[in-house]
């Protein structure tokens, strides 16, 4: 899966909330090679400010060479991107990194928080190609209802069981996504696939260790190149002796391979 650069036309732009939007772009070459958990680097503006590309998970791949990203406005780069219109072209580099690995031996727990839910939809779809919906549980957490209701529908539409919690209680249980994990039966062998804010990931990894579940985490760092060239995306290894690089060794890691600080 060599990385490719493409000026991808925006085919559709959905505004899920005030600050979350979903773009569907025409990027056949990149889409063809993409696997769940991989990401793309997107240029935020034509000028030099902001300078660097921004990383986004591949949210979904659709027939006809379509690729989706789910984008939350954080700062000026995502702000500029969120204003892009259907018909304009996004400068996309990808697919990048190592995605999730999955097989049919496990029960699959997809655990996402906030915008971290983005790569899990693609993952669910791929797992379902060889597995029954009953082998998958989706556990989602968010700050409030509007942040995830569209996504909950998307998972449910695949016939999956989705458990939801929100911090303000506006959808599902009030609480954190780890609260949804605790009461789960100790199905084994199980694989947890998780993506979300760092404190959530750390908590999820803690629960997995308690339950003796294998766990893959998708990590975020600031990135300059996404191509393993700048070495900017370093994360401490589990043995505390040196670093792994999120854009090349990840973004998906076995939870046991990285240090949890």
């Amino acid at each position, binding site marked *: 899966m*060599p990385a*490719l650069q493409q000026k991808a036309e925006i085919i559709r732009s959905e505004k899920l909330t005030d600050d979350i939007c979903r773009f569907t772009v025409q990027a056949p070459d990149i889409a063809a090679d993409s696997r769940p958990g991989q990401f793309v680097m997107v240029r935020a503006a034509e000028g*030099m400010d902001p*300078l660097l590309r921004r990383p986004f998970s591949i949210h979904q791949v659709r027939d006809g060479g379509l690729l989706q990203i789910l984008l939350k406005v954080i700062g000026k780069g995502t702000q500029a991107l969120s204003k892009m219109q259907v018909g304009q072209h996004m400068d996309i580099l990808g697919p990048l990194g190592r995605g999730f690995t999955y097989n049919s031996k496990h029960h699959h727990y997809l655990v996402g928080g906030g915008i971290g839910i983005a790569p899990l939809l693609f993952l669910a779809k791929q797992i379902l190609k060889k597995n029954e919906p009953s082998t998958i549980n989706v556990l989602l957490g968010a700050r409030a209802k509007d942040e995830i209701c569209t996504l909950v529908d998307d998972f449910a539409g695949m016939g999956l069981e989705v458990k939801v919690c929100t911090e303000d209680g506006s959808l599902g249980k009030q609480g954190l996504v780890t609260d949804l994990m605790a009461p789960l039966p100790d199905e084994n062998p199980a694989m947890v696939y998780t993506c979300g804010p760092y404190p959530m990931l750390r908590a999820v990894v803690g629960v997995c260790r308690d339950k003796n579940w294998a766990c893959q985490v998708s990590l975020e*760092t*600031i990135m300059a190149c996404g191509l393993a060239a*700048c070495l*900017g995306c*370093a994360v401490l290894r589990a043995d505390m002796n040196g670093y792994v690089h999120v854009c090349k060794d990840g973004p998906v890691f076995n939870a046991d391979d990285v240090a949890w600080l």
Partner: protein
Amino acid sequence: MAVEQPDMKISIGSLRLKNPVMTASGTFGYGEEYASLVNLNLLGAIIVKGISLLPRKGNPPTRIAETACGMLNAIGLENVGLERFLSEKLPFLQDISTPLIVNILGDTVEDYQQLAKRLNEEEKVAALEVNISCPNVKQGGVAFGTDPHMAHAVTKGVRQHFKRPVIVKLSPNVTDIAEIALAVEEAGADAVSLINTVLGMAIDIDSGKPKLANIFGGLSGPAIKPIALRMVWQVAENVSIPIIGIGGIATPEDAIEFLLAGASAIQVGTTNFINPKATEEIIHGMGTYLREHNIASIRDLIGRARHT
């Protein structure tokens, strides 16, 4: 009589390049990382990430921060070390026709000498670029590149052990860069390349702490281009060895500015991250410029702004 096929060849000492466009050390990995995005065989030269005798882990994260039209990095010279470079990275580069330039760094003159000695044995290594300027490493105190005597000593050490061209890469964090350039010319450098990154920093006002774990980092990208161009001009006024211009080059126009200021060749750094095809586009665009201005050879541009 219109120029149809302008001559893009340039020389750095005994090294002949098909065009003046190189990749800057640390921004192009070991070449392989960009193989699917750029035709590596089209490049003037490939300069790889700086290599030290032993592997280095580099600095803790956060290692990069974005700034206005630039970025800060404090990678801390993470690299695989000489042996793994030779066994794991060199084989891929052997198959690329483009000349390979290896960027080297060390803590002592002896480190540099040992690197030069071993790399001299590898025919594929067409030249060395000696990084005497990295501002990120805390060890050893003052950087070699900020003192003419130290810069002279390193250059001389490498010169003794490496038979092909030696390029010394200068630090911009000095009062008088021409003084350093003169010192390394005198010590036998075949060329100088400049500039390395400018020392800078950024603070996260929410955490109240520096954004980089290392506090300071090197500023690169379009923001530093005017500084780099001025230094190339100053060095060109003072030395007679070829100059390789580096700093914020993103377009063919930028590259031409450096040649007009006195550079014989240029390196593309940070721009590789933003536009991986930039080197190819710059080579192409320089050719177009020569044709449009009816200039037969790219060598005719070198230093032209200083003579008009």
